[in-house]
């Protein structure tokens, strides 16, 4: 790892200066207890600010508005995390999954239509999972049948994050029920304003409702919105899923590192009994263990990004990073809830647009359960590590 060229060209200083000027002061307070509309407006505004600086899609190819080197991206995400910048929540699927799909398998027309639109704020969601197709994603049963000019889609998707705000959806549907599971799937770009789509938010344990069920009733999708060949959707989906790895993991690891400072703050606060958690040897022991793990995670994710970039990534590297991160996030937020004492149960306000570790530890902990399940459960990650990483025999 050598950052010297980045440091020498003054990029870190430039990002720091930019953050000091542009990260909205007091955004955490302003994002607490707000409506959905206010959240969406803030996210759009923050995305535009980052975009105008060239910081929204640094990982995209230069011709589409990105082109930043890996070394510079690492510095960018480190500084955004260190300056506690708001996260891009609304744009996340668009700039990562949709863009990765279009770049890997989209037609020129699809790229021309959507990549600039994403930069202008087009919001995406991902419609993969179904009630009976979670870890066994290839078992999905939403059907897309051929009609004049395209397809008609019927079925139900679930755990669609942000569907209520989305303009477009990355949709996986079965186009040939007679082919083996993975072989009969196709990948579509679905306009969320098309007739026949019903979105029902699901209330989560935290009280938020960012996951949705999406009911599809004879939804028409033009043939031009098919990505890749018909029945080749599984291969395209794998490209989309891989977008959750790499730089997104590095960003999350840097955010977790910043969150550790919140944890230290929590431990150092005098409680109503006058004592501070941080003065306890047991607490110091846990903090030391957590910081060691966070340092390991940051190194791991940085290494992962560099391996992906140089084509040296092993088949299980991304799974190791996700498993490490998600379980560490649970441990850290759990500990935050523990040391917060009574306040964890009575002060329950989490700023929207914040990371998974916001300092509202009880809500952070409950939210952290999501991380070991979507995007490939921990069981799936362990299977990948065992079979592809360690070369163990495939389980029955």
């Amino acid at each position, binding site marked *: 790892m050598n950052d010297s060229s980045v440091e020498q060209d003054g990029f870190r200083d430039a990002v720091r200066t930019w953050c000091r000027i542009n990260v909205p002061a007091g955004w955490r307070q302003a994002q607490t207890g707000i409506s959905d509309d206010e959240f969406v407006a803030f996210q759009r505004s923050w995305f535009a600010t980052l975009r105008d600086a060239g910081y929204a899609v640094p990982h995209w190819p230069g011709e589409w508005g990105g082109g930043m080197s890996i070394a510079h991206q690492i510095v960018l995400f480190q500084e955004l995390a260190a300056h506690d910048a708001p996260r891009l929540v609304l744009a996340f699927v668009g700039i990562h999954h949709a863009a990765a799909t279009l770049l890997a398998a989209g037609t020129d027309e699809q790229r021309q239509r959507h990549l600039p639109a994403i930069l202008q704020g087009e919001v995406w969601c991902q419609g993969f*999972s179904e009630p*009976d197709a*979670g*870890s*066994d994603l290839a*078992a999905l049963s939403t059907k897309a049948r051929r009609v004049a000019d395209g397809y008609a889609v019927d079925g139900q998707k*679930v*755990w669609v994050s942000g569907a209520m705000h989305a303009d477009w959806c990355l949709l996986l549907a079965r186009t040939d029920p007679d082919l083996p599971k993975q072989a009969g799937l196709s990948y579509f770009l679905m306009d969320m304003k098309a007739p026949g789509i019903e979105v029902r938010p*699901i*209330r*989560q*344990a*935290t*009280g938020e409702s960012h*996951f949705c069920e999406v009911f599809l009733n004879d939804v028409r999708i033009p043939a031009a919105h098919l990505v890749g060949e018909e029945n080749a959707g599984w291969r395209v989906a794998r490209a989309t899923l891989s977008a959750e790895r790499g730089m997104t993991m590095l960003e999350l690891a840097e955010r977790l590192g910043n969150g550790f400072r919140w944890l230290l703050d929590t431990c150092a606060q005098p*409680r*109503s*009994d*006058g*004592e501070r*958690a941080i003065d*306890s*040897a*047991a*607490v110091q022991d*846990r903090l030391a263990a957590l910081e060691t793990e966070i340092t390991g995670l940051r190194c791991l994710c940085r290494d992962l990004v560099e391996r992906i970039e140089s084509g040296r990534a092993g088949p299980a590297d991304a799974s190791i990073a996700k498993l490490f991160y998600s379980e560490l996030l*649970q441990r850290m937020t*759990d*500990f935050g*809830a*523990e*040391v917060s*004492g*009574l306040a*964890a*149960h*009575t*002060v*329950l*306000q989490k700023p929207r647009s914040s990371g998974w570790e916001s300092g509202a530890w*009880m809500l952070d902990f*409950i939210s952290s*359960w*999501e991380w*070991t*399940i*979507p995007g490939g*459960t*921990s*069981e799936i990650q*362990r299977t990948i590590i065992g079979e592809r990483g360690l070369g163990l025999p495939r*389980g029955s």
Partner: protein
Amino acid sequence: MNLELSDEALEYGQTSLRAIEAAGGDRLVQIAEEEPDRREDLVGPVLTVLGADELDPYVDEDEREAAAVLCRSMGYWVVPYPAAGRLCRPRELKAGGLVVVVGAARGCVPSGGPDDHWVAVDLDGRRSWARPRRPVEPVRRTSFVSELDLHPIDSDGAGAVPLGLVLPCWTLLGMLDRAVALTRGYVLERMQFGQPLASFQSVQFQLTEAEVERSGLEELAKFTLWSVGANPSEALADALALRMAAIEAADVVFRVAHQLHGATGFCDETVLSWLSRYSQPLRRLPLGLSATRDQLSRRLGRGGLSGIFALDEVPYPFSEAGG
């Protein structure tokens, strides 16, 4: 020593499970969250039917066992009611309930109603009248936890502290019973890759890990219930040890339960979701894991716990005397 519950206690446990189910079961917590002021109306009658107010866990082992299994049943159904605190109430003060707190001004609950005369006691036995503050957040989020205003009474409460720590562990045990049962049912039913999740060995191993933790806690809870009555001098250390074990077991059980339930487990439409939420205050108040460990270490020093055999009853294999 007694590590078994009496037949009467076991039967009372079954009766209380059925009575709570008949009174609404899982619906109780949902109704109480929507209409918090109805909590007493929802739960009070079933406690009356079960004779809860006549139980005095301080007097003898039978009543202590009955109180414990009642708490366990309340946990199983996630009844949003501080039954353990009510059962532990200091009768001589005509109090409505008892809650163990840490520090002079640090409240914890789940509280009684605003008009209840609850007593807070700290680990050193200092007692105060405790009045819950009106919560700022809706109960849906606070799980009925509220801060307490404390008004000192005396320092005569040390004898109540062990039971005040032990009975909530029985409530938590009931929650773990339920979490394991729910998860077992779910993995047997949920099909993925053409077979029930339960047929995957990794799933079985996770669930068995949870069951080992749950059953270990059950045994320790029975031992501690006996110990707090039989060994007053060691009751606090035993109670803290149980609390530590209960928190650790809950961490494992709920981690496994959530993982195996997948996304449905963190949606507020499943029993596991609210079970898990309501387990949080029991696991973290008045002492979380680190703080419980810290208190236990301070009290044990180099002496250790007596456990089920006193150390001097067991020949130490490597001592000079033994050799």
